[in-house]
């Protein structure tokens, strides 16, 4: 055994120090303040009082209005994640199989939208999906009756999928890059059709990439603000827009803080549970 000099043992702490300080200052501190805020008493006439209460949490979890919004948030985020996975996996596969000038071009096409502000893209979608938008014009052109898209969950999901797709494609694509193409070829030579080889051989190997993609997309969708704000309108709220309203319209900061904490905890629980479920299996298989 080699004994380490004791002076060395402090260097990991020193090295991790700046990052840890930054993390504490930028994330832990505001979070702690928010938690404290969420327990403060609020009075409509006088504002925040110097006393503590659980009433905001109780109000949120017992009110149909808030629960409805939470369910919608969950539904929209789950739907967005599912659609992103269904579109993103084949997209990443095709991208990985492309040869080089095309691969670079299409990678840029996929990443490109990230360079445009989400607000701009949300406005773009609201123009496309509006009652006189391009989509409805096209529907009328082929003789179908126009549909109401803007200010519906469908609009939010469509726009979220558009924004989130790169976050799904890139981790899957990275996982595909690491794949030995001969492994897929081996499946073919053993009699597997292209589809079977994809399902039985390629997909399980990129499951970790897909898992991280799903986690990112779900997390970002559940806390998305600009898209539900612009495409959901005043009435169709999601968690983040609800928090915004409580803070800036109702001025009930403690209630907003309580909602934010509930969303954070729920999000965390869902993601951890999902991670445990899928990852332990995948880790054992892929090492």
């Amino acid at each position, binding site marked *: 055994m080699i004994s380490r000099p004791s002076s060395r043992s402090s260097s990991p702490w020193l090295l991790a120090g700046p990052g840890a300080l930054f993390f504490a200052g930028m994330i832990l501190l505001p979070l702690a303040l928010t938690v404290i805020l969420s327990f403060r008493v609020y009075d409509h006439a006088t504002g925040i009082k110097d006393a503590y209460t659980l009433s905001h949490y109780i109000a949120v979890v017992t009110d149909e209005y808030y629960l409805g919004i939470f369910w919608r948030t969950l539904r929209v985020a789950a739907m967005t994640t599912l659609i992103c996975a269904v579109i993103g996996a084949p997209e990443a596969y095709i991208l990985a199989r492309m040869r080089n000038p095309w691969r670079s071009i299409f990678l840029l096409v996929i990443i490109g939208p990230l360079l445009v502000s989400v607000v701009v893209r949300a406005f773009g979608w609201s123009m496309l999906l509006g009652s006189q938008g391009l989509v409805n014009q096209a529907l009328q052109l082929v003789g179908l009756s126009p549909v109401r898209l803007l200010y519906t969950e469908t609009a939010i999901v469509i726009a979220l999928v558009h924004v989130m797709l790169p976050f799904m494609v890139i981790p899957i694509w990275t996982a595909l890059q690491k794949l*030995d193409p*001969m*492994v897929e*070829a*081996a*499946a*073919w*030579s*053993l*009699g*597997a*059709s*292209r589809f*079977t*080889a994809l399902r*039985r*051989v390629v997909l*399980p*190997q990129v499951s970790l990439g897909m898992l991280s993609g799903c986690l990112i997309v779900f997390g970002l969708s559940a806390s998305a603000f600009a898209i539900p704000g612009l495409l959901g309108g005043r009435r169709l709220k999601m968690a983040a827009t609800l928090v915004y309203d409580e803070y800036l319209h109702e001025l009930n900061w403690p209630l907003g803080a309580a909602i934010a904490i509930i969303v954070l905890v729920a999000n965390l629980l869902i993601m951890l549970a999902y991670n445990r479920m899928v990852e332990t299996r995948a880790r054992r*298989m*892929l*090492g």
Partner: protein
Amino acid sequence: MAFLALERVSKHYGAMAAVDDAALTIEKGEFVSLLGPSGCGKTTTLQMIAGLVEPSAGRIVLDGRDITNEKPNRRGLGVVFQSYALFPHMTVAENVTFGLEMRRVPRSERIERVREMLALVQLSVFADRYPREMSGGQRQRVAIARALVIAPPVLLLDEPLSNLDAKLREEMQFELRRIQRKVGTTTIMVTHDQAEALSISDRVVVMEQGRMTQVDAPYRLYEQPSNAFIASFVGKTNLIAGVWRRDGMAGAVDIGGIRLEAPSADFPAGTPVTLSIRPEKILLRKAGEGQLDGRIASRFFLGSQWLFTLETPIGTITVSIPNQGEEPPAEGATVGLDWSPASLRVIASAMAHPGGGTA
């Protein structure tokens, strides 16, 4: 009629020909080795047969059926990949059973056949391991088991034994040969180990820079290499440059003023030729009693034989003699070299690359 035929098959990557105009016919049940140095196109040839690389030109015919454009999963060939290409997310048993599943073999039979096959490659205790938990040689055997278990009509093996130790390699060679004899599987094996190619094949195909330069039974390949490259690649040999002379009925070769008797050959006098003589065909005699005298420059003991390098008037010559249990002449001694003229092989220097053409 040939069971498997490559008809003028080529594969070009840009301007480079990985495989150039390959023609080969293989009979049912034959064991053929593709032998050649690294990068000569062996893997490419094999993968074209497997359907994983599309030929740029030519036809591949299997059992009378043109399979040039057939999908790999419809060819039904067993392939062992150079990189093994095991399924990393499946256990050893799942890897081996995959091909049977694809063939819709009933579950009970599947289990039985996988068990037998794992016993054959001596991996029974590893059935539930994942490939990454195994050594290179063990993975290689999983790859062999996975290809053999589907009992394919044609087996394509890309350096299937390269990672095994000498003893296991010999056992596996024996097993491959046994299975191949028993089931009558037509086998094509890629190797760059000439000893392996010679020992287990019915025929050996030598490839050089994408071209198949000689296709012959191992014995004939060794005794009658068609060019200097093959002579030196397949076994050891001494290559000596000279000029062809006619000498009555027999031939002779002039090497810097020294005339050596050689088997007759059909060259015009004055052709530059290369003489090839195998180290084991030269005998050591007392000085002055052989065809040439030489001084022993070095001497190596290899167990079953002694290996000498000798300085002679025709250049440095390697000689090997079997170990008979007594010590042969020492370094620095002068000895006579003798051989039977029939064991010399004369190769026209210009014939080094028959077929010629573009590279």
